[in-house]
């Protein structure tokens, strides 16, 4: 069994999603190769080489791969595919973008959002907003998989040594797409999908200013990442990359605090695997209380300042 994992990185550092997808890969088979495709990305390759379970790192450093455009990256993956039985990537926005493209080029049906390895050809994945788990056996000779990273813990660093790094050449760019620009949210807070604590706000926050005034101080006190419901994102209170849910980000922190969020199935799909869920909502019948470990029926505009003060007493 030969396995290739497409790494998630920003050219400088390796994303935690990679180490989690690596754990999934090692459950399928041993001796995983990790592909770092990017531009001026050697440090990311060096980080990957230090992960437990990595047998080799393939480094392809070229401007065409700087922004993970799926047309050149798909062509590169296709050129590497003949020697691998399994090709996988974390279910990040770039993994979800390129892997199906690769799968179609290989005439393979992808297993999306794989959350458990039952056998090297048999996997579990969530469907219908996580309300159903299907177990599927892939009949394709090669497997193409995206990994739900919240379902796997991150692979550890090796205690000593590093896997070899092999530099490979770029392949021809189909030259049908180009990068124009990006607007990335800047935040000093932990990254939403891997944070230990997440504080999310919903439509009840009513404005961007209220997110700043009520959600952010609480997040600061808890050292938490910030999230939101679709309603809050659609209304423009917070950026799109805060959306938690079926069609947003999947999170599973130790503590998830849902504030003024009703608990629609699409939202629950993104957070119901959190270890502890707290809900603050003024409607005692809000569906969010059906999944909350601790529910507080209260007006958030009163409860949040109080909560900040209580946490302050704990020295936070």
């Amino acid at each position, binding site marked *: 069994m030969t396995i290739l994992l497409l790494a998630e990185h920003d050219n400088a550092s390796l994303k935690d999603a990679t180490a989690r997808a690596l754990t999934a890969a090692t459950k399928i088979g041993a001796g995983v190769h990790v592909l770092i495709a990017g531009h001026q990305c050697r440090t990311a390759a060096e980080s990957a080489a230090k992960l437990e379970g990595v047998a080799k790192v393939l480094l392809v450093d070229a401007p065409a791969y700087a922004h993970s455009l*799926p047309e050149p990256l798909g062509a590169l993956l296709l050129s590497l595919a003949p020697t691998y039985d399994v090709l996988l990537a974390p279910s990040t*926005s770039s993994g979800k973008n390129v892997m199906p493209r690769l799968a179609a080029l290989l005439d393979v049906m992808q297993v999306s959002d794989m959350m458990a390895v039952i056998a090297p050809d048999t996997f579990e994945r969530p*469907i219908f907003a996580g309300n159903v788990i299907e177990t599927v056996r892939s009949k394709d000779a090669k497997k193409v998989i995206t990994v739900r990273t919240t379902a796997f813990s991150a692979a550890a660093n090796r205690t000593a040594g590093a896997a070899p790094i092999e530099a490979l050449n770029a392949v021809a760019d189909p030259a049908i797409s180009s990068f124009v620009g*990006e607007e990335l949210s800047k935040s000093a807070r932990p990254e939403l999908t891997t944070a230990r604590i997440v504080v999310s706000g919903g439509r009840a926050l009513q404005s961007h200013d209220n997110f700043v005034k009520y959600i952010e101080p609480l997040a600061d006190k808890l050292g938490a990442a910030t999230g939101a419901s679709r309603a809050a994102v659609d209304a423009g209170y917070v950026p799109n990359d805060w959306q938690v849910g079926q069609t947003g980000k999947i999170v599973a922190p*130790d503590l998830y605090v849902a504030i003024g969020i009703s608990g629609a199935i699409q939202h629950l799909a993104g957070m119901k695997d959190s270890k502890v869920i707290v809900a603050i909502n003024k409607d005692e019948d809000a569906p969010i209380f059906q999944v909350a470990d601790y529910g507080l029926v209260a007006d958030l505009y009163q409860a949040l300042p109080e909560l900040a003060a209580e*946490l302050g007493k704990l020295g936070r």
Partner: protein
Amino acid sequence: MKILVPVKRVVDFNVKIRVKPDGSGVDVANVKMSINPFDEIAVEEAIRLKEKGSATEVVCVSIGPPQAEETLRTALAMGADRGILVGFDGEMEPLAVAKILKAVATEEKSDLIILGKQAIDYDCDQTGQMLAALLGWPQGTFASKVLIEADGLTVTREVDGGHQIVKLKLPAIVTADLRLNQPRYVSLPNIMKAKKKPVAKKALEAFGIDVRPRLEILKMAEPPHRKAGVKVASVAELVKKLKTEAGVLQ
């Protein structure tokens, strides 16, 4: 420019689905079905491009059972020009859907195909990317803005860290994300008008494409249910429980 919009008939987003007791599948008997919400956004975008004069025709295609004609009629009532229904009973995998769509797009000489980013039933998020690969076209997935220019298409994409903007050569694939637009409501007169718009019915066999599933479904099950916890009476009690009972405020 001719735009093709694939639309899927799915279980309505408000329905909480149940697994059949024998685990062989989900129970969709007497369940409300709707156009996949992302496909509604895709249809809206195509119609807006036509209204702006960037497109000449909007054709919608659905692969599904006879009732999928209702889904096409919804798209026609929004303003699409005509529909194509490829008959198929059951759940077709994205790879096979993409192969059929490739044949339809080739026959229709489509210049732009706008799909939904994901069907909210099987949550695959694959078809648009697969179709792009099979056609050898570029892809602008998870789009929140689409601009047609003389030399191609500029697409703003929702990505994990925010937004990415890419330029694509035409013909191209776009997949719609939630913030691309707010679909219009259909008026009664438009629903009536849509009944007269043409829907061509095509037999799957005519395509000569092997659509047999590659993933064998061994089992379907509901995940373990989370049980509701307790209601606390005050903020102070909440903090106390989080610290001592849940142990999440170390």
